[in-house]
């Protein structure tokens, strides 16, 4: 029974004269490689040139602030629960009176750490967050680290700066 009509019967009979002489095939092959010799390379000089990886590339994490500059995260821990690599840990703290400008909710993350050696950049933390606080930026990657001291990213490296706000392409 045929599943599709695309079956091709391959038969290896005697080679024709031209095939036995190799040379026509060799010339044809050399024409192909010469064509590629003059075509544009598909690779790029990576660290100097970079490609746009799309609006949904999952790169460096960022802890967003709201438009007033208050941190959105409420230390609910849902991202840590969702994280399959158990890369996130945090310490929660109650917001003191007078700190409303700094933290949006009454509870906030005093410490928020992501272990970048564990993280697999799955983006589940972003999916889980009810406060739209954590995102994986599409335009920046976590840099290569050379020592174990560098792998834990605290709030100093994660929290968004108001002067360089992160905007995903789809949000504009």
């Amino acid at each position, binding site marked *: 029974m045929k599943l599709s009509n695309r079956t091709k019967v391959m*038969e290896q*009979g*005697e080679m*024709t*004269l031209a095939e036995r*002489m190799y040379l026509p095939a*060799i010339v044809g*092959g*050399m024409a*192909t*490689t*010469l064509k*590629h*010799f*003059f*075509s*544009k*390379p*598909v*690779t*790029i*000089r990576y660290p100097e040139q970079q490609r746009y990886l799309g609006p949904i590339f999952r790169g460096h994490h960022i802890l967003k602030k709201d438009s007033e500059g208050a941190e959105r995260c409420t230390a609910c821990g849902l991202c840590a629960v969702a994280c399959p690599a158990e890369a996130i840990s945090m310490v929660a703290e109650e917001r003191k009176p007078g700190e409303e400008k700094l933290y949006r909710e009454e509870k906030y993350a005093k410490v928020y750490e992501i272990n970048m050696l564990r993280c697999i950049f799955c983006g589940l933390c972003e999916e889980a967050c009810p406060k739209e606080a954590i995102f994986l930026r599409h335009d920046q990657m976590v840099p290569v680290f050379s020592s174990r001291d560098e792998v834990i990213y605290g709030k100093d490296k994660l929290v968004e700066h108001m002067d360089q706000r992160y905007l995903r392409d789809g949000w504009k």
Partner: protein
Amino acid sequence: MNLLTDIFLAKAAFIGAVFAITLGIAAYSTYFERKIAAFMQDRIGPDRAGPFGILQPLADAVKMFMKEDFIPANSNKWLFIAGPCLSMLTALMTSAVVPFGDTVTVGGVTFDLQGIDVNIGILWVFGIVSLGVYGILIGGWASNNKYSLLGAIRAASQNISYELAMGMAIIAILLFTGSLSTKAIVEGQQNGHWNIFYQPLGFLIFIICAFAECNRTPFDLPECETELIGGYHTEYSSMKLGFYLFAEYINMFISGAVMATLYFGGYDYPGIDFVTAQFGSTVAGFVGMGALIGKALIFVFIFMWVRWTLPRFRYDQLMGLGWSGLIPLSMYNVVVTAFGILIGKPFTAGIVGFLLLIGGMVVYDQLFVKKKIA
């Protein structure tokens, strides 16, 4: 006496220059091999060492020198060292008889742009090229390793098989020139009477054999990762390995120069009369040297081009092609050439012979070879 020392000095300077050019070209061949490979595979290639990566050969040389120079305990120490030296030596010696240019006059001294003009020039090339296989054979044997030995045996049998056809192809050239001297061969081809027009078949045979002699793809069977690890240089490291690899590139350049000499008019180039009349024969001689090197470099490019196009032969295919393909073909070529010289029309005979051959193969194919069941 004074004249003698002047000529001696001029020759020494020339040989030094050829030596430097050969080494420089071989070193940069390694770079261009990678670049060409990259371009043919739509990549960019090495570009980290210096602008466009042009310092890559230096980096390679430093790497090679810095590696540990290891000699296996059970190897034959002296032969193990002699192997790469011999490869390098024979690779460099061939260039002695290649006529790089016509006679030039520098500072009142007149000399040939050629290492030595011996009357056995072509035999010299052959002798040295066949000695070249000793470098591989000795290296493979001295390593005391079965893979090395197998690789060396492959190299030896391959070189011997293809030398026969190569020699036969050259006999046809000798019939034309009537001299073994490379200089005479080139002089016979001046003003555009290049041998390639008279000997298309001979050139085809010669270039295929040159590929085999240089152990280049599609005949690079002596090294074979899947079957033989590194082949004859499995046990080699550091600069000894570097010598082997380097010798291959030198061989490539030299065989390009030999092919240019034998089939493409050597230092002949279109417009040589004009340059001679305008600037004198010395300038014309040096331009001719450039022309020869240019031709040789085109061959080097073809070597690389083929390498990045073709897969390799199987070993029995290699032997089949050599013994039952190229040797009968080259014999046919000798007969046709001799006939052409006998009737005094070598050009017509060459073309007619080529067409007859193709016609004969087609007829044979129609009559005797089983067809594909359509």
